[in-house]
């Protein structure tokens, strides 16, 4: 699986941004021209990179930038584009109408997918990501034609080409996450979009649940009891995540737990390379 555009989504707090950045860093380190985009103006992606320049390009597709780029890229005459982009009426229409920003973001991604070797999207959480992926058909269903109609057709072609677009789900061992991951897989399948892998991270605990349980029973009332109880609970959760497997995606990849600190970018790049290799084999 070496699709050009990789969307990383999943429940909040599952490490989407870190996964997106680490894959982007790894592909850039191989010499591929790589862009990692976040979909808002939060700047979370840059903060995850430690505010330092990276080998991969980082971009934010915030509302105004995305809309402005859309208008100037697609209006046929320069004069019309200039008038439209600076037209307060049109600007007010677009900023009040839902869905336009999202279409402009998808459009920018489609255009970038032709300029870069790899585009990694630090996506919104599952529910929003699904609505976002569904939007081109929503607009098409409203009878969009003209420039928008042509652009929607190209976006639609990108999203539904498994060789060019794939969706991955970040996952951590929490009960509610598994359910959301399965719902996400169903949603993506329903849209006819390629399901990639589950990127699963768990804290490493080097003992089996059975041995932790035995020890916990034997050592009730000692100082060790509390740590045994927490370690057991964490171990049981990560076993359950492992058993849950791909949750409707093509396979599950175990991504090592990473702590921030010295050589963060280097370690993140190395982890990304491991993940990217498994993902490309999937």
């Amino acid at each position, binding site marked *: 699986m070496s699709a050009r555009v990789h969307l990383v989504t999943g429940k909040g707090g599952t490490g989407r941004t870190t996964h997106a950045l680490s894959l982007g860093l790894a592909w850039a380190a191989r010499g591929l021209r790589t862009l990692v985009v976040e979909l808002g103006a939060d700047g979370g992606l840059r903060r995850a990179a430690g505010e330092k320049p990276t080998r991969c390009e980082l971009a934010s597709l915030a509302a105004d930038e995305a809309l402005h780029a859309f208008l100037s890229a697609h209006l046929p005459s320069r004069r019309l584009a200039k008038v439209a982009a600076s037209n307060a*009426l049109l600007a007010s229409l677009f900023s009040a109408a839902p869905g336009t920003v999202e279409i402009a973001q998808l459009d920018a991604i489609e255009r970038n997918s032709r300029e870069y070797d790899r585009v990694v999207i630090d996506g919104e959480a599952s529910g929003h990501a699904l609505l976002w992926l569904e939007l081109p058909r929503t607009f098409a269903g409203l009878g969009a034609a003209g420039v928008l109609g042509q652009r929607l057709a190209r976006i639609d072609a990108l999203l539904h080409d498994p060789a060019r677009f794939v969706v991955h789900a970040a996952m951590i061992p929490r009960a509610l996450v598994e359910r959301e991951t399965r719902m996400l897989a169903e949603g993506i399948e329903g849209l006819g979009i390629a399901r990639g892998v589950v990127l699963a991270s768990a804290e490493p605990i080097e003992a089996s649940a059975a041995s932790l349980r035995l020890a916990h029973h034997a050592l009730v009332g000692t100082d060790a009891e*509390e*740590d045994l109880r927490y370690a057991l609970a964490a*171990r049981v959760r990560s076993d359950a995540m492992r058993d849950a497997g791909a949750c409707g995606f093509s396979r599950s990849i175990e991504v090592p737990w990473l702590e921030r600190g010295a050589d963060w970018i280097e370690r993140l790049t190395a982890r990304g390379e491991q993940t990217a290799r498994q993902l490309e084999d999937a």
Partner: protein
Amino acid sequence: MNGLSRLGDARLVVVVGPGGVGKTTMAAALAVHLAASGKRTLVLTADPARRLADALGIEGDTSDALEVAPNLWASMLESERTFAALLPRMVPNAQARARIEASPVYRRFSRSLGRSHAYAAIERLHSAYFGEEASRYDVIVLDTPPMRGVLDLLDAPQALGRFAGSRAVDVFAGDGSGFFGWAARRALSTLTGPELGAGLTEFLAAFAPFRAGFAARAAQVAQAQRAPSTATVLVTSGQAERLADARALTSALAAREVHCRLVIGSGASKRTSSPWSLPPEGPHRAALLAAHTYGAAARRHERDETAALATLSESLGIPLVLTTTLADEPTSIEALRELASTASRR
């Protein structure tokens, strides 16, 4: 004394924060806490992921407030249903309403993305806070989508006001003239094609008489968020990424004249037992070693994260409350009450 007493007699509690810190669960726990203290409490979640439903045990789709415990009502901010339920209030004229409901643009977008969630949240909150429901509740707890979700609520009056105040609708509906009107119509038609262009124009024309009311309600809601009787609560964990997000969010809020009253640090203080030393030999060796390593790392994290949260609280000048992570995720009212009861003042 429970650290949540800082919420005082707030009429509105707005819960904000980065994604993945247990914000929705915390909003539910705050609501359970307020309801238990005798306040008639409504909790509204703007999160379409339905986490609150899991935590509170609400089943099914509803934008009506359900009584889920004594003094506690819960309601989901789901755009399509919210608009359907509130449309009569937004557009009192039945004929105009029928035109809007028949519009394919409205039908598609009422359940669609991004700011339609913010608009739905505004209408829902307005109804609960200012409307006929207002007398039913002493306090409303509003959960917001991660990060910029709350900023969308605050920025909506500008976005809507710009639109409502402009001649946009008249121009697109073909009533306006002049070069700019022509250019705008021409650009819209070129961009979207005649069918969608006409659909948009028709929808806007149907909404036109009511847009001022819409913008006014958004302004009232934004004003309510800044009122002294409103407590904005920042929920974050002590991880570096989340703290950076929390700082960015706080300054974005301050730029909009919203100041947080309380920082709730989630999951910063799990361990109650003291560190122990690993016995050199004996039974359960592997399990003890794993638990010891895990426990030591967790204690180190807790210490670092608690210190980082304290630094955040000091530098922002906002008091900090720490809550304990329960061994299992709270999925019942009881568990939410337990979570709220762990809140301790620093």
